[in-house]
Every structure is written in structure tokens, then in C-alpha cells.
């Protein structure tokens, strides 16, 4: 299991290699990347700043990963979430899951992202053409 919160960018291919290297039991890998997009909730975006609750973020992500492992048969799981200042088009989040069969990998990666969006203490503040604004949650 790899769970990381970092300011630095990540490399998709490198993360994919980490999931498959020496791993001959898993026949499926699903990866997801979340990016900074240009338009959100009616505002034109220049970039964003991700704030988090440092003492809690890792703990929350590890809990989500453990929950996913209880529900599905998984091999390797990687969750990377960036914090700090990001620009348009930058990568924000990576979720990678390997499993014996694709169904578990698809379901688990979707579950991890969905739960991350409701339970992990990250907040986006967007820099828009009309000034900074906190993103409103659309989850609940």
C-alpha cells in the first residue's frame, strides 16, 4: 500500500510500474488521475490552492484504503493527493488499484475516489478571473 500526500507532481507511468513490477498474481490494473480543469461552478479558473488537515489526511486515506480491501480482493493500492498551489491542467490526485480481475479493480478505484471526496480533509480554493473563492461541496 502506498498512501502519500505531497506538494510535488507524480508520474503516471512510474506509479503504474510500482503497481505491476514483480506482481504476477494480478491481471488487472485500474488507474485514475484527477486534474485542475478550467471552468467550475460558473467561474473561470486560473489555478487552485489545496488546503488540508495534515494530521488527519493520511489517516483518512489509509482508512479508505482499508475499507476498500474489506470489500474487494485487491493486490496493490496507491493513493497520491497533492496539496499547495496548482495550475490549470495540473494533476491533483492519483488512485491506482491492482487485482486478479478487472471488476474488483474498477469498483475499488471508484469507491476510493468517491469516499475520498466525502471523507478526506482537503479543501480547494480556486484562483478565478474574478478573485479567489472556496469550492462548494456538491457531494451532500
Amino acid at each position: 500500500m502506498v498512501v502519500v500526500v505531497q506538494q510535488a507532481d507524480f508520474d503516471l507511468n512510474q506509479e503504474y510500474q510500482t503497481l505491476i513490477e514483480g506482481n504476477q498474481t494480478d491481471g488487472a490494473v485500474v488507474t485514475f488521475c484527477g486534474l485542475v480543469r478550467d471552468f467550475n461552478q460558473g467561474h473561470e479558473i486560473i489555478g487552485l490552492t489545496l488546503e488540508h488537515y495534515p494530521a488527519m489526511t493520511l489517516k483518512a486515506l489509509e482508512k479508505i484504503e482499508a475499507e476498500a480491501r474489506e470489500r474487494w480482493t485487491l493486490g496493490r493500492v496507491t493513493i497520491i493527493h497533492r496539496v499547495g498551489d496548482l495550475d490549470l491542467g495540473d494533476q491533483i490526485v492519483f488512485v491506482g488499484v491492482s487485482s486478479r480481475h478487472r471488476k474488483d479493480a474498477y469498483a475499488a478505484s471508484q469507491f476510493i475516489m468517491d469516499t475520498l471526496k466525502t471523507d478526506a480533509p482537503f479543501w480547494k480554493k480556486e484562483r478565478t478571473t474574478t478573485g479567489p473563492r472556496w469550492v462548494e461541496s456538491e457531494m451532500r
Partner: protein
Amino acid sequence: MIKILFFAQLKETLDCCELELDGDGIAEVKDIIELLSQRGVVWAKALNAEKLMMAVNQDLAKANTQVNDGDEVAFFPPVTGG
């Protein structure tokens, strides 16, 4: 003492990121909300917002979650990561 933390919009609204409270008389998270609401309209409104989230010792919590002396309690708006 109980350590209280605020994040994101809530931190800006209250102009406060961290404070400490005496643990006496505090049994649940809602006791903290009640106590801090006495600080004025801004605090009362922000801490009684319907969508307010809270955590005790870095685990998501509810208003009726138990709080003990030495705990860390955090309040924050709905999360928007991912």
C-alpha cells in the same frame, strides 16, 4: 485542555485556526459548539451550519461523539478534495 482546530472557509470566517479549551464541562462535541457559540453571532452561525463537519482525534465525528481531556477536535466545511 482540549485543542480545537478550524480549517478552510471556517478558519477565515472565524479568523482563527486554533484555540484551547478547558476540558471541564465538555463531554461531547456539541458542548464545544455550545460554548464557542457564546463568542458571538459569527461563531454561533458558523458552528451551527447544517453541513459543518467535525473530527475527534483525526477521525470523522458527530455532535454526539464523546470528547475527553487532551483530545484534538477539528471543525471544517464539507471537504472538496479529489
